[in-house]
């Protein structure tokens, strides 16, 4: 009874923290990037102010926007939130751990992407079309890379359950593996593409030729836009949390032992902050690439994923799985 209660409590705390930390993460990221570029930058709380401002504004809908257009922000947010519920942040063994399947998480993120793409097509402007078609092309290369990452993880841990994989990797029984390093790099590349960060997409631009994600959501305004911005921030936090819990699983608490939670929380915040700092440094250093270079960029991720799996087959004679 008590363990189940603790698991549920951890789950609720996790969801609340994910929602609260997501805008903060974006604020910190923008601030750090501004400082790296020699600007003062806005307060780290600026994304909260923006959401609050947008919530006070009525959306302006195009004359021919349909019911689908109006439902899309909530659907994308719900799917991303559902995926975020399944990714362990500070503790393992939350209520939803038995169903935290990596394929389901990827699938839920696809729901968010597809619904945004459909929303982009609904008004029938060229911007919506350009954003949606490019986003779907990126996913054609990001998905196989992600699936190879999952394949390698499933070979190592014997399951596609994220909570289980993180538990296995936290025990350290597998040791340091070259394959893990390869899929870490692949995972970082996928995360950049999925979140529309540099060098794949520029989250800060409204220049026609470079827009992907921003082009898709161009027609949204007011409270709908607030939800979409929150969704984007939540997705970024989700990816950073996912990477940290798979590849840096140290410090993860156990839901049944609440005394470990504060440490787990502190370690989680530290890991996400470190990844965000790395992201800010990286984005300051690179330039955006042409759209049709992105398949090559993600092709490297696919190749790394494939190499990781093959390396595992060759190096271990494949004893780890059986």
């Amino acid at each position, binding site marked *: 009874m008590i363990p189940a209660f603790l698991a549920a409590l951890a789950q609720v705390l996790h969801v609340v923290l994910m929602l609260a930390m997501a805008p903060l993460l974006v604020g910190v990221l923008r601030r750090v990037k501004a400082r790296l570029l020699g600007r003062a930058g806005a307060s780290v709380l600026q994304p909260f102010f923006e959401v609050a401002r947008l919530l006070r504004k009525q959306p*302006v809908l195009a004359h021919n926007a349909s019911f689908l257009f109006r439902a899309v922000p909530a659907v994308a947010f719900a799917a991303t939130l559902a995926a975020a519920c399944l990714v362990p942040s500070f503790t393992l063994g939350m209520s939803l751990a038995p169903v935290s399947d990596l394929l389901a998480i990827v699938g839920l993120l696809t729901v968010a992407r597809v619904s945004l793409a459909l929303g982009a097509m609904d008004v029938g402007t060229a911007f919506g079309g350009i954003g949606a078609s490019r986003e779907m092309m990126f996913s054609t290369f990001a998905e196989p890379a992600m699936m190879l990452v999952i394949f390698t993880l499933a070979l190592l841990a014997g399951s596609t359950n994220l909570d289980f994989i993180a538990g296995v990797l936290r025990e350290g029984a597998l040791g340091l593996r070259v394959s893990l390093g390869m899929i870490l790099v692949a995972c970082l590349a996928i995360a950049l593409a999925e979140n529309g960060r540099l060098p794949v997409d520029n989250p800060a631009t409204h220049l026609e030729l470079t827009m992907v994600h921003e082009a898709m959501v161009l027609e949204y305004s007011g409270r709908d836009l607030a939800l979409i911005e929150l969704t984007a921030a939540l997705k970024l936090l989700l990816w950073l949390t996912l990477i940290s819990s798979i590849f840096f699983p140290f410090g993860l608490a156990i839901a049944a032992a609440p005394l470990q939670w504060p440490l787990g929380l502190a370690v989680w915040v530290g890991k996400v902050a470190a990844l965000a700092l790395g992201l800010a440094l990286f984005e300051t250093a690179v330039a955006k690439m042409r759209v049709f270079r992105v398949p090559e960029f993600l092709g490297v991720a696919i190749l790394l994923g494939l190499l990781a799996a093959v390396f595992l087959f060759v190096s271990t004679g494949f004893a780890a799985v059986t």
Partner: protein
Amino acid sequence: MILPLLAWLVLALLILAIPAPFSQPYVMPAVAGVCGAAAVAVLGFLAFGAEASEIVVPVGLPGASMRLALDGLSGVFLLLLFVSAGACAVYGHGDRESLAFFPLFVAAMALALLAADGFTLLLGFEAMSLASWAAILVHHEEKASRDAALLYVGMAAFSAACLLPALILLSPAGDRIDGLGFAAMRGAAAPEGFRGVLVLVLVVLGAGSKAGLFPMHVWLPLAHPAAPSHFSALMSGAMTKVALYVMIRVLFDLYAAPPPAWWGVPVIALGAASAVLGGLRANLEGDVKAVLAASTIENVGLIAIGIGVALTARGGDLPGLAALALAGALLHAVNHGVFKTLLFLGVGAASHAGGSRAISKLGGLIHRMPVTTGCVLAGGSALAALPPSSGFASEWLLFQSVLAAPRIGGLGLQIVFAVTVALMAVAAALAASAMVRLIGVAFLGRPRTPRGAVADETDRPARAAMLGLAGVSVALGLLPGPMLRLINPALHALTGSDLAERAGLLLVTPTSVALGYCAPAVAMLVGLGFFAALLVLRRLAVRGHVRGPAWANGFAASPAWLPFGDPVTQYGGDSFAQPIRRALGGALMAALEEVDMPAPGETRAGNLAIHLADPAERYLFAPIGRLRRAISSRADAMTFLSIRATLAVMFVALVVLLVVIAWVQA
């Protein structure tokens, strides 16, 4: 008890196929009723243990009777057939052009699934091909339809020419006619060596060409759109599955011994090639029904991968894995059958109302046809494998089986599985993209033609048929566990293992550990998030909205004489496909963009032409066509021989045949 009932129902369908002027208005309702009754009977059969039975029908070849049988495997496919055929009959209630062929088509497919001997199987299989061939020829005044029908009937003949020798190879030597019974084949020793390989090749070619497996897929995007919508729906949804049923029946049941593990590899390779190429073509086709037909190639490829993995696992003596992979294949066959039927009906209604099958002439239908669009969205989410839809549940099982497959061992095999996983993911992403393109261009956006701007919602029975199928599809997505329970008897009979411990009411797991996919939980999470977001917005945010012209980054508002804006400024089918065409089309489909840009000052219009060529057409069908023409032009010369030469030719042919017979007898 169920089997005789089904036999009578098939006979009823055959009687309905007899054309009579007075009965015309009642044929389709009667077909729908018969299919509904049969679906309920099969559901009951599967739910209560699926005990195999066989009956003998006193008609057939001279000296032999037709034998019919019902077991778990045929039950699964019959259930799919009757559900989608019932919905198609309701949808096509007003059809008068191809009325006689529809009950014949359904009856032929049912006969192929119920067959318990080679003769009955081929009779049903070929009647199925001919009935659908006639449906393709309904619009025979169009040259495209005639060409499609010719290719189609050629492929049908090819598949029969492959399946007949395969069945003969499997039958025990001696009594040729009774030996074609399935029971005799199971009892006979499995052919070994090159004869065994020949069975594999012939079955993959014969059943694969009917299912649309690469490289025999070229007829699908031509033939499926040519037929009336309720026929195309049944062709894509059910007929391709009958071919897959034949493949499973022969490879897992009639071939008596477990075949060697490598048998699965060619099936997996062809499946992966079909999945990627079908997904890519679904993004490039300009005809909405051809998009769906191409996506059928993709899904058939995914099912074939499942069959191949199951075959490999069976050869590697891992019955649990074989059951998992076959469960994925069968579940995906059922799910795809339902959602592809739904999509064909919805897209057929849309293209009828919008006056065109060209994706770039439709648009904005969501405002005029909300029910149809809603149904297409339900089917499209399954096509794109979005959780918690049915497509995701079955693709999840297929992915799990491939992820577990490296256990079979062998470095080469393991690398095959790693590549297969990547290709399956490419196919899934391409399917999602094709779905966004189809719905985004044809149903969303602004109308592109005056006809599309005044399209009317389809009639009440058609809406009922689509809503019913959408309901079935959603239910299959939310409760994959119970459907897997219905598949279990088939798995048990074919692999010796089943998913009884792994398919719960809520949770489906790949191994016996309780970690897996729980569709209701995922649906609940998304639903909770959705309503929580709406609730919070209602509480915290300002209410209401304002309408205005589309923003489009400050693009000018549309002028009064173009109330929806200039329709050509939105993305169309070809423009949406451009990124994928450039990234993948060049390598796989020989995509070529030909830009004709007038020089400054010239007043003629610019033009962008796109050329595509399917590799199977370029490297396989075109050379075969050239060979056929060469042979026929040579053979033409024989009609102008002198009488002496003619007699000599006949004499030589007779001698050669006698020698061959003598050699075979010896």
